[in-house]
């Protein structure tokens, strides 16, 4: 019975098992089919659609930008004389206006909403927002310009190629201001050709092109110093390779698009090369499946993939972050962004997440607006630590969040891929200096999201362990030595045991030793000296000691470096950020009332009058009495503060006005003071002093008798730490309020500058000073400027919260 039952059960089980197995097998088959055939197409984002296309007759499009109003501006060459070379459209591509200017290879929009055209012949044309020419100048090159960009400090960098006598091609680069004054220029000789240039986060630039038959990429800092230059050789040395376009990538690196000959291919094939921020290749991909074609333009997509223009098939191709093709989309046009033109800036991402392509056929140009990719939902990575500031430790926590499930996480530090991580971690062993960091996350569909690049700095840390450890060892060694000298008495303690030795009266007995006690008193003196040096800084830096006194934040604006049409916007922008005072140089020409300097001063004071900004005028050591009189007569009533002499305590050089002796400084001060007094202005008078006043203390004491307050300049981290002591001393000897008249640091590291300025603003506000004026709003020849840098926004945020 049991057996029968068992057999019966077995049959039932067999039956059930076979049905169950079949069902499972069926389900598995369906799942595999779905996975194989459906899953990839679900993972890959769908191609976007063409939203609209427009034709522009008679133009060869060389460059397109999206303008501040959401429209587009296209610049290029006229296909016949008299045709427009600069066209402005609205966001739907309808032409708003067009101008016949020079044949342009590249175009950029300026901060005053005007445009700059970089022409093939080396001319640079500046227009207003309506395309009317304001100024133009020549770079003095014999043609061959390829592309121009505007840097964050408002200067222009133009690159191009020329041919030397003897037929050798060389690449050139010029950095100029808006008036055409050359800051620096460089030539890359020996077979270099440049095709594209991009700005870098440190206000430098990167150039891409070719060196002989190899791809080439070079990185320059803001002063034109070459940081590195690399060429990338593939295949046979005789196989040519050309870069046509370059884009910055989210990880701080670069992607180059172009073409090259590969041994196995019959002709030129498209090529992508990914380079990290240090110039090392991360991947290079020849696309041998597309013979006789190239990638003429490239943009990076939101998910760190790439979109490239393929002129051979008049299509665009989408690749993921590793360069693997995802889809292609034909553009249904007869030609697209020819590499024989100027393709570097013809393909751009738009503000709505889509893309704009401008290209040309034989008779006209076209614009094609591509919609955003609907299916792309890349992981959003937000880094909460480190922040853009200076750290005094080499171990910094890396904390970030990802809005979803990530199957892979990794980070890139200083352009080097640091490998996979599982979550929040700690960055260890960071070297002193500037660093950049991005975190990437990949979701289950393979899409990669990359965070914003965080720029932070690791500062040199005070070696407190070494100092305190050294002092402790020195004390221990000294005491041991003394104890050794008293070994006879110690012998007694030894007999009586250590417990007896540690008794208070016995320890007191040891301190009766003259050397031991001297050591103790010297140590206490050191501690007290340290307290005197650092307590004021530590105390005032603490947010709990905030003063409620009014605190004016100002900035020095060198308006003579800007164009007339820029000044009002800049003053307005300075006001918008919350600055209350603008400090300016005395700029005028008393001999020629119609001189340009007088015109821009008129514009500046008109702007400050309209916008209600206070102005502090610097009467420099070298200003002539005629100019001072002229300026004060004309704009004296607009002044809230007048600075008499600039740092007279250190002006012992010819370029600073040469006040070598105290008599010279005193008589110059008296002369300027007398002129200012004649004008009977309501402005408050001050003179600013550097920390060198310590050795020329007579100057602040003497001058302050005629001043309303004294200024003090702080421009180094160490000075910031000691500034409370110096300010208290300056207040004591002059019996006047102190205002920080110049505050800033010469650095091209935005995080360091921001950190320094915010620290100082907190310190000076908490000290109850009347104000702190930063140097400079704009500064083209050093790294003091904050315009266009992240510091500008951070100071604005600080003012909104604190001043």
């Amino acid at each position, binding site marked *: 019975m049991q057996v029968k039952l068992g057999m019966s059960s077995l049959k039932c089980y067999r039956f059930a098992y076979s049905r169950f197995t079949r069902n499972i097998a069926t389900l598995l088959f369906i799942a595999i089919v779905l996975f194989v055939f459906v899953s990839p197409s679900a993972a890959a984002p769908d191609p976007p659609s063409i939203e609209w296309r427009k034709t522009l007759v008679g133009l060869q499009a060389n460059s397109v930008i999206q303008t501040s109003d959401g429209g587009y501006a296209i610049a290029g060459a006229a296909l016949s004389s008299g045709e427009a070379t600069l066209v402005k459209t609205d966001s739907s591509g309808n032409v708003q206006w067009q101008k016949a200017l020079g044949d342009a290879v590249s175009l950029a929009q300026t901060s005053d909403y005007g445009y700059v055209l970089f022409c093939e012949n080396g001319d640079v044309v500046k227009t207003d927002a309506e395309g009317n020419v304001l100024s133009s100048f020549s770079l003095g090159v014999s043609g061959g310009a390829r592309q121009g960009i505007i840097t964050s400090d408002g200067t222009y960098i133009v690159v191009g190629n020329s041919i030397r006598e003897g037929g050798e091609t060389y690449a050139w680069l010029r950095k100029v201001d808006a008036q055409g004054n050359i800051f620096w220029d460089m030539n890359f000789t020996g077979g270099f050709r440049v095709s594209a240039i991009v700005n870098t986060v440190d206000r430098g630039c990167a150039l891409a092109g070719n060196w002989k038959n190899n791809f080439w990429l070079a990185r320059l800092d803001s002063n034109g110093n070459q940081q590195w230059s690399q060429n990338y050789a593939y295949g046979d040395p005789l196989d040519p390779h050309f870069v046509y376009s370059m884009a910055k990538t989210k990880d701080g690196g670069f992607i180059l698009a172009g073409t090259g000959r590969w041994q196995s291919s019959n002709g030129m094939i498209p090529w992508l090369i990914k380079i990290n921020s240090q110039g090392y290749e991360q991947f290079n991909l020849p696309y041998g499946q597309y013979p006789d074609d190239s990638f003429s333009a490239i943009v990076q997509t939101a998910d760190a993939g790439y979109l490239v223009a393929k002129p051979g098939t008049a299509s665009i191709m989408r690749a993921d972050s590793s360069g693997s093709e995802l889809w292609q989309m034909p553009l249904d046009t007869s030609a697209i962004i020819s590499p024989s033109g100027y393709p570097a800036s013809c393909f751009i991402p738009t503000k709505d997440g889509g893309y704009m392509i401008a290209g040309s056929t034989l008779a006209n140009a076209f614009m094609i607006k591509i919609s955003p990719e609907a299916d792309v939902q890349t992981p959003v990575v937000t880094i909460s630590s480190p922040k853009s500031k200076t750290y005094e430790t080499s171990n910094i926590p890396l904390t970030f969040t990802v809005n979803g499930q990530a199957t892979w996480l990794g980070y890139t530090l200083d352009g080097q891929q640091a490998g996979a991580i599982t979550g929040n971690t700690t960055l260890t062993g960071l070297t002193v200096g500037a660093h950049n960091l991005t975190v990437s996350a990949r979701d289950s569909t393979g899409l990669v999201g990359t965070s914003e690049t965080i720029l932070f700095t690791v500062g040199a840390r005070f070696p407190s362990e070494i100092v305190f450890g050294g002092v402790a060892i020195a004390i221990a060694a000294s005491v041991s030595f003394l104890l050794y000298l008293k070994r006879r008495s110690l012998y007694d303690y030894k007999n009586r045991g250590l417990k007896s030795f540690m008794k208070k009266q016995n320890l007191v007995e040891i301190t009766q030793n003259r050397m031991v006690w001297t050591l103790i008193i010297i140590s206490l003196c050191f501690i007290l000296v340290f307290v005197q040096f650092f307590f*004021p800084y530590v105390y005032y830096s603490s947010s709990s000691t905030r003063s409620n006194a009014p605190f004016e934040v100002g900035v020095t604006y060198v308006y003579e470096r800007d164009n007339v049409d820029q000044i009002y916007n800049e003053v307005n922008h300075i006001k918008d950020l919350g600055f209350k005072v603008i400090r300016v140089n005395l700029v005028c020409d008393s001999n020629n009332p119609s001189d340009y300097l007088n015109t821009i001063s008129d514009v500046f004071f008109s702007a400050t009058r309209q916008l209600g900004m206070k102005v502090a005028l610097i009467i420099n050591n070298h200003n002539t009495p005629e100019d001072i009189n002229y300026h004060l007569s004309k704009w004296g009533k607009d002044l809230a503060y007048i600075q008499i002499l600039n740092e007279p305590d250190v002006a012992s050089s010819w370029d600073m006005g040469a006040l070598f002796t105290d008599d010279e400084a005193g008589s110059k001060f008296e002369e300027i003071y007398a002129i200012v007094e004649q004008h009977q202005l309501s402005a408050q008078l001050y003179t600013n002093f550097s920390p060198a006043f310590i050795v020329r203390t007579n100057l602040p004491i003497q001058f302050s008798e005629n001043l309303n307050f004294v200024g003090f300049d702080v421009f180094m981290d160490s000075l910031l730490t000691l500034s409370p002591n110096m300010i208290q001393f300056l207040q004591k000897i002059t019996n006047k309020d102190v205002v920080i008249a110049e505050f800033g640091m010469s650095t091209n590291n935005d995080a360091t500058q921001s950190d320094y300025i915010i620290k100082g603003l907190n310190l000076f506000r908490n000290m109850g000073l009347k104000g702190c004026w930063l140097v400079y709003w704009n500064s083209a020849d050093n790294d003091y400027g904050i315009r266009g840098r992240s510091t500008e926004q951070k100071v604005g945020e600080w003012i909104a919260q604190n001043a």
Partner: protein
Amino acid sequence: MPRTLKLSKQVFIHGLVITIALVAIQLLLDVCQNAFLLYMPPIGFAIFLVTMFAIQPIILGVLNIIVLHRLYNCEGWQIGFWLNGFFLLIFFSTINLLIQTSAGVPFSLGVGIVEVFLLAYPFGYLGKFSNRGCKSRNPQQTPTT
């Protein structure tokens, strides 16, 4: 032969002498500071520093040891004049700096007068402590009324 006093009185008198000396010298230096600073800069400033950190400590150190000898019947000294005076000066100027920084009150005659009374006891102990171990002429003697 010095009168023997209660320890608390000895400490108070000791502190009073030291603080009065510190306040008086500080006020004197404050008054003539700018005169120093205006004299052939930076020579005047250097002389001011020498006066402040070399001469003043010696005066204070000598004064402290004299008071110790007179009040506590000591002989000799444990640390040198200058170091003893410098220690007292730096302690006093640190207190002034703390007051100025945290209360915003710079040193002045009024502050000095208040300090003389408030700091008399602490500086009495400090003066004694800073040159501790000066040997008593009669170790058996204990302070009595």
